[in-house]
């Protein structure tokens, strides 16, 4: 699964730290998600979507192997 959290963050101009605080997780978690090392839970995905005011599908994209 791919995600464009980095892009969305740039658009909204917020740091990993700020996004982490907004969804109540550690900065490591945002970092791990951005670098594709961790797939967030449905709850966390929905929260991230809410921060960017976008549907989850616009932020997280399935890849062929998924």
């Amino acid at each position, binding site marked *: 699964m791919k995600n464009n959290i980095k892009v969305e963050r740039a658009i909204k101009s917020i740091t990993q730290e700020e996004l982490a605080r907004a969804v*109540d997780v550690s900065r490591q978690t945002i*970092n791990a998600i951005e670098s594709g090392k961790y797939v967030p839970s449905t709850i966390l995905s929905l929260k991230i979507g809410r921060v960017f005011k976008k549907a989850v599908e616009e932020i997280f994209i399935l890849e062929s192997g998924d």
Partner: protein
Amino acid sequence: MHNKLLLPHRFKTAGWLLLSVAVLFQILVWTRGGELSWLNIKVFAILDQDMGQSKYFSFIQNNVTEEIIGILFIIGGLFAGFSREKTEDEFIANLRLSSMLWAVLVNYLLLIVALIFFYDLSFFDVMVLNMFTILIIFLGRFHYILYRTSKANPHEK
């Protein structure tokens, strides 16, 4: 993400402290040789085998230096590894579990190597060390990954 098996975050510092005390204590015992004589006390033994003689449920004389160090190390390690992080979340919970799995695997791989290459009294030493390796590997891996994930792009917008 509230895992009931985890201790409050403040136990973490206490854990590292206990762990350091145990390690320092052990280094002292190694470098200065032998156990501390004033720790020679009477203890209760469920089973004590010495020179082919077995004693059950009896009080015996024993030096408790190693016992104290071992208990300090284990409690310290458990506190350090099983306390909530400052911001405990799903990724960290996941990382803790995967580190546990990793530690058990690596531990037993090392034990297989030790079984093949160490014999007699040397193997006994390996077994003593092996009591602590799961904790050590777990703590090492968990904190290394946590550190690595926190380091990448710290100031990136």
